[in-house]
């Protein structure tokens, strides 16, 4: 279903996010002035929007990844089960992303 291609898209998106994760560590290691550049950039509305998108991508990829691992050991293949787990993954990703950012901001 749609989740299959979303798994790929969020995966590639998270790979791009990995660059920002590394930049966060590297800028922190480079000292307060360098780190401040990173902090200002990620506090910009575009930065925040990207972080929210990456949080959503993380939860969707995590949830759907667990769904795949369950399939790998042979469970949940019935059409009704696969459809139900797809909705659970999608709703969980939305709820967890909302919870993370509503409580954080």
């Amino acid at each position, binding site marked *: 279903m749609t989740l299959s291609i979303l798994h790929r898209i969020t995966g*590639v998106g998270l790979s791009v996010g990995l660059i920002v994760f*590394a930049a966060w560590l590297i800028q*922190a*290691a480079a000292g307060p002035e360098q*780190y401040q550049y990173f902090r200002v950039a990620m506090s910009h509305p575009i930065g925040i929007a990207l972080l929210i998108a990456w949080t959503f991508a993380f939860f969707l990829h995590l949830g759907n990844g667990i769904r795949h691992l369950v399939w790998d050991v042979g469970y949940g293949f019935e059409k009704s089960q696969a459809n139900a787990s797809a909705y659970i993954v999608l709703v969980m990703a939305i709820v967890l992303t909302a919870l993370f950012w509503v409580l954080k901001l």
Partner: protein
Amino acid sequence: MSLRTPLSRVLGHGSAKEGTAHFVSQRISAIALVLLGGWFLVSMYLLESTAYLEVVRYIGRPLNSVLLSLLSVIVAYHSYLGVQVVIEDYVHAPGLKLLALIGSRFAHTLIAVASVYAVIRIGLII
């Protein structure tokens, strides 16, 4: 531990390439990332502020340093395996495909090494 399936060992034909190892590696790193990624998001949520001192103290705490280093390496590996499949599926020109695969391997290795170096450096300066 051999990553070959019992069937492949019994048949003794070997695999055409390294499909099984890729499949198993991707899943093992996925299981590790359920734990490490989950820990990272929880700890980001619990981080009081994103100010320099707070962040550097967080990264420099021994347990966090170890888990962040592990996360950097395993996530780069998992990302490499995933991007490899995406390149193989969508990039068809043989030369370009090889270039993209090598470039991706270089970039992922660079990210993993740079991240671990940064974590160690922060641990040493605070």
